């Protein structure tokens, strides 16, 4: 745990998202932790999460790089939806239908393809998926 004084010395060091943004970018790293990915800060060569808890990174190499001040930014898992010349990004793990709803796309008006194959709306999106949407509505 950090002492109250140390907490204060880092501006906005609190566990809420508004103050997160006020942490100077040079303290902000993205670390590979045990199983999941989270954001943490490096302070005096030690690594803390946003609750002020000390987190030992699993990977010593990663940890050493962080200590030397290198910022690691692992790729954020993402799914891309493409409709005509519009692109939308969503997080993996949700269904295709939810992803469409999230971006206000009516599933009735499009068909979804992945790698040229049609996929139905209950498909769970995986990291790195690129979903091409084909508009079904035509006029005239």
């Amino acid at each position, binding site marked *: 745990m950090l002492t109250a004084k140390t907490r204060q010395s880092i501006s906005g060091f609190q566990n809420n998202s508004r103050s997160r943004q006020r942490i100077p970018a040079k303290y902000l790293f993205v670390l590979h932790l045990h199983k999941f990915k989270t954001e943490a800060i490096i302070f005096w060569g030690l690594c803390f999460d946003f609750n002020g808890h000390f987190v030992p990174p699993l990977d010593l190499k990663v940890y050493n790089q962080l200590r030397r001040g290198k910022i690691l930014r692992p790729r954020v898992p993402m799914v891309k939806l493409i409709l005509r010349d519009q692109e939308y990004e969503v997080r993996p793990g949700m269904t295709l239908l939810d992803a469409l709803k999230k971006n206000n796309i009516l599933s009735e*008006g499009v068909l979804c393809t992945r790698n040229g194959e049609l*996929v139905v709306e209950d498909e769970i999106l995986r990291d790195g998926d690129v979903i091409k949407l084909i508009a079904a509505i035509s006029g*005239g």
Partner: protein
Amino acid sequence: MKCRACGQKAVVNMRQHKLALCKEHYLEWIPEQTGRFIEKYKMFSHEEKVLVAVSGGKDSLSLWDILQRLGYQADGLYICLGIDEGLNYSAESQRLTGKFAAAHSLKLHIVDVQKEYGSTIPEFSLKSHRGRLKPCSVCGLVKRHVMNRVARDFGYDVLATGHNLDDEAAVLFGNTLSWAGEYMLRQGPVLHGNSGLARKVKPLCRIYEREMLAYALLRGIEYIYDECPFSVGSTSIYYKQLLNKLESDRPGAKQTFYLSFLEARRSGLFVERETIQAELHPCTNCGQPTSAPGLCSFCRMMSR
């Protein structure tokens, strides 16, 4: 989601039918349904000669594909409207239509509006409206005239168009908003021919636009993805979006809207007024029937 027929991974899910199918079974299902509706609405028989109006779009090419698979005698008619607008729209759709016909060794009639009547559709529109309106009304008039003419000249019994359920529901919705009873009377899967006109049928009128798109994609039909540049922002697209909004909250709403209309009309909700049944006169120039004696609206436009 699994295919209902075989249990494999489904590629299309139709919420209004509570039916999901794999590619193989979907490609069987659509022609089967189309065939069923052709018989149900008594559109045409295997002995009759059918002329399919093909635009190069997904619906009309798929319709042609389906009719040929079902063993009907279906020839195509492509009308080159001369619409370019920097997109090469007409040229590209003609190329794709020609390619489809050649690949399936089907007979295709091509009518080039500019060659036969002297101007392209945008030019006609400019002349008759002085460019104030979209060319769609002129375009519709010319297409109707050419389709009737080719059907008559070559002795086709039936004229088939690729209108799908979304097209029909959108037209019906527009007509309902203004209670255009006369138009509603004439809207339906079959428009019976009279005074030398071929019967007009819409074999896809029960199939959603999205499903026709899925058919075209799964069948590997090369169609023109770009829209006619004049259709951008059209009311029919707007109505289709509204209906899709409804459909997404209540699967099947679109279909019910159209089918209950057909049912209501069949049971006599819209009674034909005598004045509506007004006699048709043959146009003094081209011979196609028209409501007022003298020239038909097409010939009137041409003579201007």
